[in-house]
């Protein structure tokens, strides 16, 4: 069970890489991949996505040092995987992640990095709506993880958090809350995690939003009036549009220290350029600009943190020192602690999918089965001119024998055949009807894969009316459309924004990659 988490993530990430290496912009919020050939005076940096807010500072850095940073944004784990596989060596000179703690758990990456230079810090905290803080009668400076747990268990607090397997803020939060609730006095052990499991389970019943990226999390949160809080970096929470009260739990936090790190493989000119850049970033003036602009904390003595940043100190919770503990925690989160997912895969198997497209779909689904979590309910809903009712199958991954469901899903996928027209919107309505009123203890979502435009059943407008007539709880089920073949970007984009989902592009990357990326949101 324990090794499964990493094996799955590793293979899945390898696929995601292929998707992202080729995809660029469009409907998904991933910026164009800059990692290409080295160019004098520029530094190609694989960076955490929240570093986009460093833009103005890096412009100043370019003026002062002549070094232009060309960032490519990626999730922490994705980046770690690219470094370990050697993929990063080919396209980048440096990596700039929120933290290298994750990276250090992989001994195979030690030789690949050099010059780790922390530039600024930001703790992972909770941003809570001020009305909620008032309702709970909390003094934000004194709230502990136990109080947060109590509030959730009593049904008084809900929150959104990124997927710990994909994002450092989610993983840091998981480490913090596991430390807080287990009463661990030093670095977490497997026994601590086991001891805290019942309370952690209760704590994660309050997680109403999950996300593969912190950017989408903030957008999704803004749509939802029933979610009280957001887990993210202090700097991100303080910069969020709606005012949030930042709670750094008084019994401890995990802090990101943003080390600008060279790849050992970078050429000497790039290393020299990075040296000049980090020297500049560590000057008191640059540090002042960083804290004022991005609300992160300076790492140079004598530079005062921006006034919005609370000064009372916090205990720093140790990050797990071994991969076994980290993997165990991630595995526990996926298979035991978090609310399970219920997902309907609405799959276009119309006539136009025949041949190579259908084969790609089948192999992508087969790959995907390696990534389903224990307790997860998966429904394959193939459609042509209408939903192919006799092919609709639902399987739930039983923790006692996960293989049974996974084999069954693979077998169902193999049997798919192409025929008929394309009834996108009628089929989606059936998916919503199937999921019904979402019970409170699951994350529900719909994945729509289609290779063409709607030809049968209800038109788009009818779906809009249908969706708006759904009860509020059902409207919280997002649709994640995948752009594939000849499908219409505009229509799918509309579906994503109507339902609070997100569009994934498989026309420039791979279908496997798109399916895998969506996992972070399910």
């Amino acid at each position, binding site marked *: 069970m324990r090794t499964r988490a990493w094996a799955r993530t590793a293979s899945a990430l390898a696929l995601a890489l292929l998707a992202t290496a080729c995809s660029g912009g469009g409907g998904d919020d991933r910026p164009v991949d800059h990692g290409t050939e080295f160019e004098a005076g520029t530094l190609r940096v694989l960076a955490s996505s929240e570093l986009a807010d460093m833009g103005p500072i890096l412009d100043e850095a370019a003026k002062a040092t002549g070094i232009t940073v060309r960032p490519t944004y990626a999730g922490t784990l994705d980046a770690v995987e690219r470094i370990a596989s050697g993929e990063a060596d080919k396209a980048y000179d440096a990596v700039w992640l929120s933290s290298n703690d994750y990276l*250090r758990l992989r001994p195979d990456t*030690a030789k690949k990095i050099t*010059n*780790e230079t922390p530039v600024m810090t930001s703790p992972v905290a909770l941003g809570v709506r001020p009305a909620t803080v008032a309702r709970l009668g909390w003094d934000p400076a004194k709230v502990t993880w136990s109080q947060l747990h109590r509030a959730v268990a009593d049904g008084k607090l809900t929150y959104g958090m990124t997927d710990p397997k994909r994002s450092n803020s989610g993983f840091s939060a998981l480490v913090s809350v596991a430390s807080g609730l287990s009463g661990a006095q030093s*670095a977490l052990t497997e026994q601590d995690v086991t001891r805290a499991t019942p309370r952690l389970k209760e704590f994660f019943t309050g997680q109403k939003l999950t996300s593969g990226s912190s950017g989408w999390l903030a957008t999704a949160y803004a749509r939802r009036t029933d979610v009280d809080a957001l887990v993210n970096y202090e700097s991100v929470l303080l910069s969020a549009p709606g005012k949030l009260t930042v709670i750094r739990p008084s019994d401890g936090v995990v802090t990101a220290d943003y080390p600008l790190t060279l790849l050992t493989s970078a050429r000497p000119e790039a290393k020299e350029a990075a040296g000049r850049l980090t020297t500049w970033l560590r000057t008191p003036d640059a540090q002042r600009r960083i804290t004022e602009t991005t609300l992160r904390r300076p790492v140079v003595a004598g530079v005062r943190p921006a006034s919005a940043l609370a000064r009372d100190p916090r205990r720093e919770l140790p990050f797990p020192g071994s991969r076994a503990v980290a993997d165990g925690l991630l595995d526990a989160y996926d298979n035991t602690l978090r609310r399970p997912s219920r997902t309907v895969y609405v799959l276009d198997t119309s006539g136009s999918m025949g041949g190579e497209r259908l084969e790609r779909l089948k192999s992508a689904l087969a790959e995907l089965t390696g990534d389903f979590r224990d307790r997860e309910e998966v429904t394959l809903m193939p459609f042509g001119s209408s939903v192919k009712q006799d092919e609709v199958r639902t399987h739930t991954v039983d923790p006692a024998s996960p293989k049974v469901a996974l084999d069954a899903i693979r077998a169902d996928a193999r049997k798919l055949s192409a025929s008929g027209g394309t009834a996108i919107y009628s089929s989606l309505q059936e998916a919503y009807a199937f999921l019904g009123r979402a019970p409170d203890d699951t994350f529900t979502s719909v994945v729509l894969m289609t290779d063409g435009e709607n030809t049968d059943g209800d038109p788009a407008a009818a779906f809009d009316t249908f969706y708006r007539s759904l009860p509020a709880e059902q409207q919280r089920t997002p649709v994640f459309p995948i752009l594939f073949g000849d499908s219409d970007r505009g229509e799918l984009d509309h579906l994503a924004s109507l339902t609070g989902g997100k569009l994934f592009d498989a026309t420039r990357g791979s279908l496997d990659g798109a399916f895998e990326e969506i996992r972070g949101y399910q």
Partner: protein
Amino acid sequence: MGFREHAARVRRILGIVLAVLLLGGVAAVLVTGGDKDTGTATKTVRGVIGSEKAEFFADPQVVKALAAKGFTVGTETSGSWDMEERPLDGYDFVFPSSKGPADELRAKAQAASKDKALPAPLRPFYSPLVVVAHSAAAQILAGNGLATLGPRGTSGTLKMDAYLAAARADRTWQQLKGSAGHTELSGTLFITSTDPVASSSGALYLAAASYVADGGRVAGDKAAVTRTAPLLRKLVQVQGAQQSGSDAPFRDFVSGVGNPLVLVYESQVASQLLAGRPMGDLVVLYPDTTVNSDHTLVPLTENGRALGELLSTDPELRKLAVRHGFRPQGAASEFTAATDGHTAYLNQTLTGVRQAPVPTSKVLHEMALRARDQGDTA
């Protein structure tokens, strides 16, 4: 699938074309610009250094002083023990933070260069290991007999015996007198160090601790390592993930995050003082038994040797080394004179500080591996 492979192929072809163009460009420069350089004879040397020396080499005045002597120095940082893992081709010197990794690196380089004898290592400067503490933490240590503080409360002595006894007993901050009201001081009392397998300061911390724990004996064999292994393991395991260089934990400390007790080089603190930076609530604790870290330059080429020589002997560069908080080898007067205004923080003469001898690098490495659970557990 097809598309993906095609795109990759196109990129690969583009890469080759660009590489050829770049090579052509370099060749053109060599051919056309070659004669311009003959007059100045600037030596460009490249080296791998410990992270605590990065700011020294990046200092514009150091760059200028080196240029005046005909040197352009390019550096990149690495944990001292990690240096061994790296290919050393193309570098002129390695500059780890202590003798142990330097010896290993020299042996490795010597083996690679076969018949040609390599020049001797040079030790231009050293720096003792100290513990930085936030003032509240230092006061509580003093109140519980784990440290003594000077009159200003900004420097003092860490009593290693008492500290190790506390570590052995898994003492928490909450159990110490005077910690009530300091919610940030909770959990097991420990000093943050770097990863002893990767980095010199972390390994030297274990050397000092084992020396104290074994009654003032230097570990010389496996039996000695085994005697102190449970304690050293405790000192390391409690920390969870460890950094591989001493710069990062110090920066976390300065940023007000991280553990309240961090093992650093005295030079890291002294350079801040000498730069006139406000020190906030920082307190410097000199362990009563510590290790002086001999920053050791291992030359890999003749130019590397010349650089080491220059750092050791050039008065201007020695002065600049002091400004970055290092103590030059030889006369102590350069350091004491420069830091005269900062005796509230610095123990200039290391009064009351005993030097623990360091075990051989083989023994030290074994200690580190066992402490991190990476060695054999026999």
